[in-house]
C-alpha cells in the first residue's frame, strides 16, 4: 500500500498540471478565433483577385501571356517550404510536416538531393530544429514571422522566394503545411507554389462585362499573377497558423481530460489507503485491549 503522503503530493501535482493545461487550452482557443478572423478578412480580397484573374485569362489565350513564373521541364533545383510552429505541445502537428518533407526528399527528389540541389526554407522553429538535427541544409529560416503574422511581413518572404525562382536559383518551390479542417482535424497539405499552375475557375463566376482594360489585358495579368502568388503564400501560412492553434487546443483538451481521470483514480486510491490505515489502527487498539483483559 503506497503511503498516504506520497499520494497526496501526487494529487496536488497533477492538479496543478491540469490547471496549466486548461489555461493553455483557453489561450489557444482565443488565438484560434483571432487567426480565423484573419482568414475571414482575407477571403474577400483573395476571391475578388481570383475572379478578375479568371475573367481575364478566359478572354486571353494562355500562350499570349509570357509568364516568368511558369516553367516547363523536370525540376533540377527544388526549394521546400516547411510551415511549422514555434512552440510545441500541439500533438503531431510538427512531426507530420517534418515526416512529409523527408518522404518527399526520399521518394520524389532523391536525385536532386544527392546533388545537393534541395533547399529547405523553414517557417517555425520546430521544423527548423528538427531538420537541422537530421543534418539537412536549411537555405533560410523565418521563425520569428509567426510571432507577429501580418501580410506585409509575409510578403517580403514571398517576394524573396519568387525572386529566387525567377533568377533561376530554384526551379520548383513546394509548400508543406497543415490545412485547417476543424479544431480537431488538420490535414497535411503539399502544394506546388512555383511554377504557377494555370489559372482555373468556373466560367459562371466571371461575368463577362465589356470592360475597359487599362493599361491592357496582358499587363494587368502580368501584374496580378505575383499578387495572387503572394496571397497564396500568405493563405498557406495563415492556414497553418490556425491549424496549429486548433491542434494545440485539442491536445490540451485531451491532457486536461487525462489529468481529471488521473486525479479521480488517485483520490480513490488515497481514500482506500486512508480507510485501510484507520482499520489497521482500530484493529491494533482492540487487540491491545483484548491482550490486557486476558
Amino acid at each position, binding site marked *: 500500500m503506497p503511503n498516504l503522503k506520497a499520494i497526496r503530493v501526487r494529487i496536488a501535482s497533477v492538479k496543478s498540471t491540469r490547471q496549466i493545461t486548461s489555461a493553455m487550452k483557453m489561450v489557444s482557443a482565443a488565438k484560434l478565433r483571432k487567426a480565423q478572423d484573419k482568414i475571414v*478578412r482575407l477571403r474577400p480580397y483573395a476571391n475578388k483577385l481570383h475572379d478578375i484573374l479568371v475573367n481575364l485569362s478566359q478572354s486571353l489565350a494562355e500562350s499570349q501571356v509570357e509568364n516568368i513564373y511558369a516553367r516547363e521541364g523536370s525540376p533540377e533545383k527544388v526549394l521546400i517550404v516547411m510551415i511549422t510552429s514555434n512552440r510545441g505541445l500541439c500533438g503531431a502537428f510538427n512531426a507530420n510536416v517534418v515526416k512529409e518533407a523527408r518522404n518527399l526528399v526520399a521518394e520524389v527528389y532523391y536525385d536532386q538531393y544527392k546533388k545537393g540541389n534541395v533547399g529547405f526554407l523553414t517557417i517555425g522553429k520546430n521544423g527548423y530544429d528538427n531538420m537541422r538535427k537530421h543534418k539537412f541544409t536549411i537555405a533560410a529560416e523565418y521563425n520569428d514571422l509567426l510571432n507577429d503574422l501580418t501580410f506585409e511581413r509575409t510578403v517580403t518572404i514571398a517576394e524573396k522566394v519568387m525572386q529566387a525562382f525567377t533568377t533561376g536559383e530554384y526551379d520548383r518551390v513546394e509548400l508543406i503545411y497543415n490545412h485547417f479542417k476543424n479544431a480537431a482535424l488538420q490535414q497535411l497539405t503539399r502544394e506546388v507554389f512555383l511554377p504557377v499552375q494555370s489559372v482555373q475557375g468556373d466560367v459562371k463566376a466571371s*461575368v463577362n462585362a465589356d470592360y*475597359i482594360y*487599362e493599361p491592357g489585358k496582358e499587363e*494587368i495579368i502580368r501584374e496580378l499573377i505575383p*499578387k495572387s502568388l503572394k496571397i497564396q503564400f500568405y493563405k498557406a501560412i495563415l492556414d497553418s497558423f490556425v491549424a496549429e492553434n486548433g491542434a494545440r487546443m485539442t491536445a490540451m483538451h485531451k491532457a486536461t481530460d487525462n489529468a481529471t481521470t488521473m486525479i479521480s483514480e488517485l483520490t480513490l486510491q488515497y481514500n482506500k489507503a486512508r480507510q485501510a490505515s484507520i482499520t489497521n489502527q482500530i484493529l491494533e487498539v482492540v487487540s491491545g485491549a483484548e491482550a490486557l483483559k486476558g
Partner: protein
Amino acid sequence: MKIEIITPDKKVFDGEIKSVRVPGKKGSFQVLKDHAPIISTLENGPVIIVDMANNESIFEINGGVIEVKANKIILLAESVK
C-alpha cells in the same frame, strides 16, 4: 455608388460615395456615377474619396487594382496607409 477598399488584412472602407480619384497606371483618373466598366491596375499614390456629404478622405495605397461595374467599385490594395 458604392465602393469597397479591401486589403488582405482588412476592409478599409465600405460605403456610398459621390466620386473617387485613383492613381491609374496610365495616369490618375476619376470615377463618377455611371462610369463605364473598367479594370485597371494602380500605382502607388493617393485614393481620394468624396462621400455623400462632400467630405474628402484620402488613402495612400501601395499599388493595387480597381474594378468598376454597374456603379459598384472594388479596389484591391496591397496595403493602405
